[in-house]
């Protein structure tokens, strides 16, 4: 009887918890499909519409002066996130390999150094970065944002992959060396295939870090390379102007697309990847 009661209590707690977590998300998704008049209506029944998305994505016309033209911002986000994550993967993977396997002096400290950038509040890093980019004329350019995002993605990829590689028995790479593989061949033909899911999850999470960034893009962009999260903050409007909840929720919905993709397709590897490499020898 007692066990049963405990079980019931546990389920109730779980339902409350999941409800609290899921409700805002569900609310956002539903609202994004509502007409403005339905958003403030008391009824739960409404006619779904794509109006919010059309208003959000397309450029303004004389007939529809309030359209937001969000699509270029979305594209900007995609470009800078994809390019910087790819470069980070390309540089970070061999870096992680050499830190893990080649007996680099002080390898552990280097790994920590790489990561320590992430410990600082972003704004501390942004001040010198802003001045530097200003001098280099990199403000509001793709290159500037991509370089800044490398600072997010690269340390994360190096740190995670180094952890993965450390967990692969040393003898495996030794055997490969004796078999005649070069270090590059070991990395691409032995280690990456052996740890491919871990690798994929790491890259995707690095991508999400870039995709979700607000502070860096807010500081470094003005007009041409404004990314989706930066642009989305505008939708909350100025003081006194009513917030267009339909547009805001539609923006939130399409911004979380990549996240949905990652969670749905990689769910079973995700928890493992997040905890993998945490325990270090």
């Amino acid at each position, binding site marked *: 009887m007692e066990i049963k009661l405990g079980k019931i209590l546990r389920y109730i707690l779980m339902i409350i918890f999941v409800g609290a977590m899921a409700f805002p998300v569900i609310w956002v998704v539903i609202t994004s499909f509502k007409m403005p008049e339905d958003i403030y209506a008391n009824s739960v029944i409404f006619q779904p519409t794509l109006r919010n998305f059309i208003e959000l994505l397309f450029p303004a016309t004389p007939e529809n002066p309030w359209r937001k033209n969000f699509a270029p911002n979305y594209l900007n986000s995609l470009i800078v996130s994809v390019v910087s994550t790819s470069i980070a993967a390309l540089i970070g993977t061999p870096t992680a390999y050499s830190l893990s396997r080649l007996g680099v002096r002080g390898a552990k400290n280097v790994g920590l150094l790489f990561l320590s950038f992430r410990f600082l509040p972003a704004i501390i890093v942004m001040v010198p970065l802003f001045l530097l980019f200003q001098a280099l004329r990199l403000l509001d350019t793709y290159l500037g944002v991509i370089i800044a995002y490398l600072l997010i993605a690269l340390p994360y990829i190096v740190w995670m992959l180094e952890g993965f590689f450390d967990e692969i*028995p040393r*003898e*495996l790479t*030794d*055997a*490969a*060396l*004796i*078999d*005649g*593989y*070069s270090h590059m*061949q070991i990395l691409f033909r*032995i280690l990456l*295939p*052996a740890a*491919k899911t871990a690798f994929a999850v790491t890259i995707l999470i690095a991508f999400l870090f870039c995709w979700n960034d607000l502070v860096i893009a807010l500081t470094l962009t003005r007009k041409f390379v404004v990314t989706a999260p930066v642009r989305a903050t505008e939708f909350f409007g100025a003081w006194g102007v009513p917030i267009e909840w339909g547009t805001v929720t539609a923006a939130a919905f399409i911004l979380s697309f990549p996240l949905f993709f990652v969670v749905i397709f990689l769910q079973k590897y995700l928890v493992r990847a997040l905890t993998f490499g945490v325990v270090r020898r």
Partner: protein
Amino acid sequence: MGITISHVGKKYGARKVLDDITLDIGSESFTCLFGPPGAGKSTLLRILAGIERPDEGKIYFDGEDVTDLAPRKRNVAMVFQNFALYPHLKVYDNIASPLKVAKKPKEEIDKKVREVAGFLRIAHLLDRSPVYLSGGEKQRVAIARALAKSPKIYLFDEPLTNVDAKIRLTMRTELKIMQRKLKQTIIYATPDPVEVLTVGDRVAVMDQGVVHQYSPVKEAYEHPVDLLTGSYLGYPAMNLVDCSLVEKDDKPILDAGTFTVDMTLMKEQVKQFSHEELIMGLRPEHIEISLRPPKEEGVTTRVLKGKVFTSEVVGSDTIVYVKVNDTMLRVFVPSVYRVEENKSIWLSFHVNKLYLFEKKTGRNIM
């Protein structure tokens, strides 16, 4: 291919793992590196393979200095204790791996893989993933991968340690047969004295980065240079009893406190060690056990009376633990031998089978 290891030293941080190792390993020989964990066996193999560089000294293959040569240019193969198979490749591709890297033609690879797989009786496993194989099967695949490379030198790093006992027995014999067929140089690291005694031609007994004895296996077993070699190389381990040499009625007597041994037979050899602290070594297989007092006891044979403490059957042999007064002695009986505990029993051994070691230095003096 002959190997010369010349004054090789290696440190990990402040710890010396290899200290001035010099060995001459003959072509086509089966040499065992034998010693407890931490002796430096693996490090020495890794240096020979080229995965690690020695801090001091040189390595020569057939007279050619290979100290700075990359592993892939050395023509060696290595089999690891934990198999080190590529988990994402099928057994076939694991075995083919060194040939594929060397860009050998496809037909040649296929022929070689099937040949070694047949030789090691793993042909039926070629399409499987190594992840699902048993320890013995995994090790066969690892050996097959080494064979496929057809190197001049094979390095085995405790290959049978992670394999279950029954397979270990058969694989030992197979390794010996394999070596005769291959006619290549094999260096085999193991902490197991039985493996050394079954497969090795020569043995280098190592401890704490130092080679204590390097000789043919038989010689190391019969004439260990020191206490370490004597106590490690043999199974069950040698009985070691603290004792000292005293004179009684003009006879040299070994006094172990709980019993004595008349050393008149060895008078000349032992006389200079009078009154020194010594350790008496007696191999369990050199002691005979009997339930009645044996008739003879003289200058050549010593009989001790004791009580059975316990016994353990190992395979088809028995190790009997006998208490002679307060000294415990292991006795090896080459059959399944059941004997009650606390039963009175007589042990006899030839005095000339005794070893004597200096306690201070561990040096073998007889």
